């Protein structure tokens, strides 16, 4: 009786453990992001998790806010400095490198957007091929919330 209960408990523990291994670094992306970053960078889209891009990509974005994917998104200098400190400190390659997010990113590359990151195209490749992001309800590859309901709070484990 006991060995079977133990075995069952062991299996449950393994399944949970594997769940964390697979979903971990992405589904619980940065639970408490900087409030200035969230306030200033979620007016037009969600405040994207800082660890989805390397530092050099964030720096490039912050240095070209007057030409931010077709719009002017310039910030007052104080907010800009505060946001830069946050993003530089919590990027994919801050404090060592997040191997899952930085996979296949060449050192010579500076991805301009999250949807150019190899981890992203690998996950969403089939959807791209089916033009799923052109659907009116989705509208844009930048619209994570269309399928990831918890995206605004950094949850990407579920999809609708």
């Amino acid at each position, binding site marked *: 009786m006991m060995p079977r209960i133990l075995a069952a408990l062991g299996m449950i523990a393994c399944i949970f453990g594997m769940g964390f291994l697979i979903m971990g670094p992405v589904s619980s992306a940065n639970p408490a992001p900087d409030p200035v970053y969230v306030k200033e960078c979620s007016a037009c*889209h969600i405040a994207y998790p800082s660890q989805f891009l390397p530092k050099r990509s964030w720096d490039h974005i912050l240095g070209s806010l007057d030409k931010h994917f*077709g719009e002017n998104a310039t910030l007052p200098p104080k907010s800009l400095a505060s946001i830069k400190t946050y993003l530089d400190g919590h990027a994919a390659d801050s404090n060592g490198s997040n191997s899952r997010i930085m996979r296949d990113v060449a050192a010579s590359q500076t991805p301009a957007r999250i949807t150019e990151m190899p981890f992203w195209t690998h996950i969403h490749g089939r959807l791209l091929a089916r033009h799923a992001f052109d659907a009116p309800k989705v509208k844009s590859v930048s619209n994570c919330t269309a399928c990831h309901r918890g995206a605004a709070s950094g949850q990407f484990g579920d999809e609708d």
Partner: protein
Amino acid sequence: MNMRLAAAGVLAVMIPALAYAGAAQKPVLDAYAAQAKAEQASFAGFSAERGKAFFLAKHDASAETPSCTTCHTNDPTKPGQTRAGKDLAPMAVSKTPDRFTDAEKVEKWFTRNCQSVIGRACTAQEKGDFITFMASL
């Protein structure tokens, strides 16, 4: 309770409330009026009609955002949507009463969106006309 008395009571409260529609926007508008006067001595006040034409106008500065209506739609009493798919509260003050009450926020968005849509800064006249239009809806 006398129905006519009740109706009169409701009206008595409503009329001043209606008169105050746009009162919260007054400080921001007054500041733009002062600026407009400084920019143009012939400044003669703001116009909702001019603001409407300004809002609906189409420009050549950007393929992505040719008009204010690109994100805010033709009807400011309805929600808008950013190009990334995020909902925007209606611009009409009657629907979103805190619109145009925070001077810093108003300036931030005029600075950005005028550059994006028109390719230049907006004048104080244009800003005041725009807000006057949105407060009239």
